[in-house]
Each structure stands twice: as structure tokens, then as C-alpha cells.
């Protein structure tokens, strides 16, 4: 990973930022005539997939993705502040999302931090260019929050591992070339965690040397597609796919989740979720009619809006305060571990509240001419659960904060 201690010139950064703003201003595709996914978890059609893959590739080629990842593996070799600037420019221009989120933000930093030289050479560039798409095989039908109990089996057989079992809620499972896979190599280990291993597993092609890996799309609460159940039947993959050593799976999976939850840095950058801009809700409150008047005229609505805007601002303030050492040391990790819970719950409440501003129009959904903002808020609300459930539910986040930040005993 590019060293954040390396010096950089403020003027260079300012120039880079201006160039990024200009580039996204010019190149952001507008007037796309089909519905674009709000998050990387909503990629449900080939049209969306192909479009987003091309878009990510274009952004990467322009130098605005992985700008701070090492040059030798395909990154830009710059200070992280440069990628931050590019990511902000991207969000502000409201560009389509970066498709390969699991590669860019979880697998990539994990490989850069603890992968072998070969693994870095093999995977990093494809992650950035969207040539190789990644998915995550952690959750199973019977083991979700209790991830440590995962039962998918990996049995060593000569130079291979043979995988059997099923993963579920696999985002982009049907498109992925590779999966970060958590599987049980030793069912007799002294505890459930120690029996797990971590694989960089191929999903298709000749690298699957035998058996089958089958993905079955699952329809989401939005009516769209985006994740699959993934079945492994005697799937044979090379033993080289094992990351680290047997038994280190839990450790590596936990590190992966830290990237996923934003509690650890190193992500390639780029926005992977189109969060509604909190201030859009003020526009909505001006336009939407409640009891015959603009919703914003209602004092109760105003009070709630102010509370939400205040909360929105606190999300940004929290992450900045986390970098001011004397203001972040009373309870180490508090702000980092608290950010997923704070932001995902916030967006859920924001969208839920937005629906209540619309009077009878609250009833409409995407595609109806009467829907406010073409049902953006309704769809946003339903989608918001992807973030309060995926990546560890809000309840699990509270356990983590309670136990790791506040020092409470395990439940």
C-alpha cells in the first residue's frame, strides 16, 4: 500500500483534484435509459453489469481508482489524499457506482496487506480494471451472524482442495470470476474458529478443475436481482488458492470485515453506494405536499429534518475527528467501529422519513408516473436494509461496539 507518510505537494493535490472534478464533469454518463443500481449489491441485469464494468474500467484508465495503490501492481503510486479527492469528486458528480466493490474495497486491501507477491501480481490489476470480478463467500444458509460456524467443507486432495457446501447472499455471485471463500478445512479443530481457512477461489473456467460451482440468483425485496445462492459440488481448485495457512481463515475473514465495515483503511476508493445526498430531502420537503401544503411548512417536519441534517453532518465530523488524536483517544476504535452502525441506520431513517413527506404519493413505486422522484425514496428505503443487514447486522455492530469499545462481557 502506498505509504501515507510519503510527502506530497499541496499544489499537486489541488491540481489533481481540479482535474478529477473536470474529468467526472465531462465523462459521467448522463441520460442512461435504464435503471442504474444504487449500490454494488443491486446489479441485477447483464445490461447493468456490462455498463458498470466499462465505466469502472474507464475511471481506472483515467487514474481515479487505486490512485494510491502501488504502481508495480497497477495502482497510481500516489498519496491516499489523491484517491480521497478523486472519490469525493466522483460522489459529488453522482457518477454511477464502481462495480467491483468486493475486489476494490475488501479483497484488494487484504491482498496488499498480507498477500504473497504472486497473489498481488496476479489479482490487483484485474480488480482495478474490472477485468476480474470478485464476490464474497462467507454467509451460509444456516450460518450468517454466527459466521465462525461456517460449514462449507474444503478437503485437501493432492495438489487440490475439493469444496462442498453452499454459500448464500453472494453479491454478484453469478458474475464473479473469483470468490473470497471461508471454508472448513478441519472439522475437529479445538474450536470452531480454528478449523476455518481462507481461499482465493476461482468461480469459473479451467481453474475449476472438476465438479461444479453453480449460482442461483435470488430475487430481492426490491423485486430486483443482485445476489445468489452458490452451490459447491466436489468443486476442485488448486491448493495454491489457499491464502495464508490452514486454520488462519477466521483471522483473515475478520480483517476482511474490517475493510468492509470501514474500520480499517486501504480501500481502492471510488463510491460503491449512491447514498442519497441528505440535503436532497430538503428539496423533497419543499416539493412534496402534505395536507395541501409544502411538507416543509409543517413545524414537526422541520424539527425532524433538522435532526436528520445534524446527524448527517455528524457522520463526516466523526470521521474527521477520528484523525485528531487527542479527540479520539478516550475509547480507542470507537469512531471507526461505530461508523457503519451510525451511517447505515441513519440512511435508513432518512429514507423512511422521506416517504412520510409524500402524502398519498407515498404509495407509488419506481416506474409509476405519479411516483415522487420516480420512487427514489421508496427504493432507497427498501435498499437501505442491504447495509443494515449485510456486512454484519446493526445488532451485531452493537455487540461489537459494546464488547470491543465499551468492554462489556459477551452476550
Amino acid at each position, binding site marked *: 500500500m502506498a505509504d501515507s507518510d510519503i510527502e506530497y505537494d499541496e499544489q499537486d493535490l489541488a491540481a489533481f483534484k481540479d482535474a478529477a472534478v473536470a474529468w467526472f464533469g465531462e465523462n459521467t454518463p448522463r441520460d442512461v435509459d435504464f435503471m442504474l443500481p444504487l449500490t454494488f449489491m443491486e446489479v441485477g441485469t447483464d445490461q447493468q453489469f456490462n455498463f458498470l464494468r466499462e465505466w469502472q474500467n474507464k475511471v481506472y484508465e483515467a487514474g481515479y481508482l487505486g490512485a494510491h495503490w502501488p504502481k508495480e501492481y497497477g495502482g497510481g503510486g500516489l498519496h491516499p489524499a489523491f484517491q480521497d479527492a478523486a472519490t469525493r469528486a466522483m460522489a459529488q458528480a453522482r457518477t454511477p457506482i464502481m462495480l467491483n466493490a468486493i475486489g476494490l474495497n475488501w479483497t484488494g486491501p487484504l491482498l496488499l496487506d498480507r498477500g504473497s507477491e504472486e497473489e498481488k501480481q496476479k489479482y490487483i490489476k484485474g480488480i482495478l480494471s474490472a477485468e476480474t470480478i470478485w464476490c464474497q463467500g462467507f454467509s451460509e444458509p444456516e450460518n450468517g451472524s454466527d459466521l465462525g460456524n461456517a460449514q462449507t467443507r474444503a478437503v485437501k486432495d493432492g495438489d487440490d482442495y475439493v469444496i462442498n457446501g453452499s454459500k448464500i447472499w453472494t453479491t454478484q455471485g453469478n458474475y464473479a470470476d473469483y470468490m473470497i471463500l471461508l471454508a472448513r478445512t478441519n472439522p475437529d479443530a479445538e474450536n470452531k474458529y480454528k478449523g476455518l481457512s481462507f481461499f482465493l477461489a476461482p468461480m469459473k473456467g479451467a481453474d475449476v478443475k472438476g465438479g461444479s460451482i453453480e449460482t442461483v440468483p435470488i430475487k430481492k425485496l426490491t423485486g430486483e436481482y443482485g445476489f445468489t445462492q452458490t452451490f459447491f459440488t466436489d468443486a476442485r481448485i488448486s491448493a495454491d488458492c489457499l491464502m495464508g495457512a490452514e486454520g488462519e481463515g477466521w483471522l483473515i475473514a475478520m480483517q476482511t470485515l474490517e475493510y468492509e465495515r470501514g474500520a480499517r483503511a486501504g480501500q481502492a476508493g471510488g463510491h460503491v453506494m449512491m447514498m442519497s445526498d441528505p440535503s436532497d430531502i430538503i428539496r423533497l420537503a419543499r416539493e412534496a405536499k402534505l395536507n395541501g401544503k409544502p411538507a416543509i411548512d409543517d413545524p414537526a417536519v*422541520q424539527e425532524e429534518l433538522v*435532526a436528520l441534517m445534524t*446527524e448527517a453532518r455528524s457522520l463526516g465530523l466523526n470521521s474527521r475527528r477520528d484523525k485528531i488524536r487527542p479527540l479520539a483517544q478516550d475509547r480507542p476504535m470507537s469512531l471507526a467501529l461505530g461508523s457503519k452502525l451510525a451511517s447505515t441506520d441513519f440512511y435508513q431513517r432518512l429514507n423512511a422519513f422521506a416517504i412520510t413527506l409524500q402524502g398519498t404519493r407515498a404509495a407509488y413505486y419506481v416506474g409509476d408516473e405519479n411516483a415522487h422522484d420516480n420512487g427514489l425514496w421508496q427504493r432507497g428505503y427498501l435498499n437501505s436494509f442491504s447495509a443494515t443487514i449485510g456486512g454484519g447486522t446493526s445488532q451485531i455492530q452493537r455487540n461489537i461496539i*459494546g464488547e470491543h469499545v*465499551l468492554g462489556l462481557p459477551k452476550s
Partner: protein
Amino acid sequence: MSAFDNARMAPRIGLSEEQAQLLDIAESFCRDKSPVDKVRALIEEEGGFDAAVWHEIAELGWLGIGVPENYGGIGLGMAELVPLVEHMGRSLMNTPFVPTVLAAQAVLRGGSEAQKEEVLRQIATGAAASLALCEDHADWNLQNLSVTASLQDGQLTLRGKKYLVLHAAAAQFVLASVALDGQAALLLIPADALAGRISREKIIDDTQRAYALDLDGLSLPETALMPTDLAGDALAHIEQAGSLLLAADMCGGAYACIDYTLDYLKTRKQFGKLIGSYQALKHSIVDAHQAYEKARSHLYSAAHIFGEQGEGDMAVHMAKAEAGEAYSFAADRAIQFHGGFGFTYDCDAQLYRRRAIMGCALYGDTRYHRRKIAALMF
């Protein structure tokens, strides 16, 4: 469309070298000087604070932090007072510090040159002072004034009563807001003019002291009047500065009260398990903690940009609103999570809960500040 821009702008927060140092010093000072048994002992004393600690605070130069050097102060600003008051809030420390530094701010903004010379130097070296702002109508709007002064032949004559004057009994000066010819005005009243007019009020927060001032018929020389053209601005400044410091006290209190409750959750057992392992308690205290973190971010953002027109005001309103909400929730849960012990005077949870109510009662509660933000935003 200021709100629209706000959300997109990188939120502003920072910490000066001085703030960082004061944060360190205040933490150990307040912990040493205000352990909870001391807080409880002071509740039993009439004055409610330790004169020796007050003296040390003056020696440390803290009273002069917000006072310019040419008036004998250190010449820093409101931002540097925040870490101090935050730690006073954590330790439930009670002295006339907040009313005194706010009175200094009022004189700084609203006083004549002679008044500044007279008062600021004394405050910087340890004189306590206070503000008489609240009235019978219980309105937070500092411009709503029914206590009046009339000016005749160089004499001011006052009518009415002021309430919730913190530490009035210890103050060597009290600044009172009055209506003079229908306009807001501030009066600088020396302690000796108030003899026999001060009576202690029974307030919800036993760690603090508040007094009613009977100003009816009080006669003062015209020199007590601060320049009337500055009064409006001075009152606006007091509202902002008061809200900021109260937010600091409440953030500190919220932290301490969560900490206090965590200790219990980690030691008390029921059904054979530590009660902190029960999620009904664990998740709720996490929510309290998250609300505290949010409030603290707003606090240090407000301190950082204090005084900036528009943005600075908005940040202070947010800080006070969030601190009030966070402290109230944390202290409310603190009582509940201590069970029967929580219902006792011996349990510290009530100290925090009462102080939170007091903190919301002064300079506006959460709803009041949200309405102010709404007025700025929409």
C-alpha cells in the same frame, strides 16, 4: 440554499495546540479536584463550591483565557474554554467558572472601555461574576425582557426580578439584562448594590447554585449602564457562548455517566451473568455512547468555527441540541440500568440526570435549538 451546500462541504473540525494542552491539563485537574465524594460533600455546603479550587483555577489563568491580553488575560478564545468545561462536566465539578467567563464575554462585547478596564482585569485575576438573564416568563429568548430600568437625572431605577442567576452569592459583579425605553440593555451591578436582594433558589441540580435577584426599586448610577448600542450584539454573543459552554459541560457529563453505568454493567450479576451481557442493556448503552460521540463531534466543530456568521451559529445550535439529547438519554438510562440502587440518592446516576435537565433548561433545550437551525436552514 445554505443547507444544500453544507451537506456537500467537508465538515469542519479541528483542535488547536492550546486546546490539546488544556484538554490534558483539565482532565487531570478536574479528576483530582473533583472526585465524586467531594462533589457530594459540596452539595451540603451553602456556597456549593470549594474556594481553594476556585483560587487554583484563577492561578492557572483559566479565567483569563477568553480575555484579551491588554485587559490582563491570555488572549485565547471560546474554543479554548471548551476542553476545560467539558472536563468540569465529566467530574461534575461546580464553581462559578462558567457564569464568570460568560460575564467576561458580555463585558468584552457590550462594555465601555472603562467597564472593560474595571471588570476584565479583576475577573482575570480571580473575581467571580455572573449573569442575570432569566425572567419569570421562562423564555429562552434573551431579548424578551420584562424587567425594566428607567433613567432619570443620572440615576437608573429598576423594576422586577431576575432568576437562575448562577453563583450570585459569590459574584463580585452581576450583569443584568433589562429593557430600557423598550430596548434591551445590560447593566453592570457591583455586589454591594445587591445586598439583601439575593435569595437561593431550590433547583433540580444539587451540585449547582442559583439565586433569584430582587431588583425592584434598586437604584444605580448611570455609569452602571453598558453602551446601549452594543447590547443586542452582546446578548446574541452571550447566547452563543453560553450554549457552547453548556454543550461542553453536557458532553462531558454524558461521557462520565456512560462510564459510570458501564462499571455497573461489568460488575453486577443477575441470573448468574453479568448484566452487561444482556443486549437490552448492552445495545441501549451503545446507542447512548453513539449519541455522545455524535454530540462531541458537533461540540468540537462548534468550538472550531465559533463566531463565524451563519456557519458558526448553526454549529453551536447543533452542538447544544445534540449534547442535550445525548446527556438526557444517557443519564435516563443510567438510572434505569442501576435498578433499585438507581432510585437512591446514593447512586450517582441521579446527579447526572439532574444536571442534564439543568443544562437543557439554560440557554435552550434541544427543540429550541432545532427551531433556531430550522430558521437558518429553511
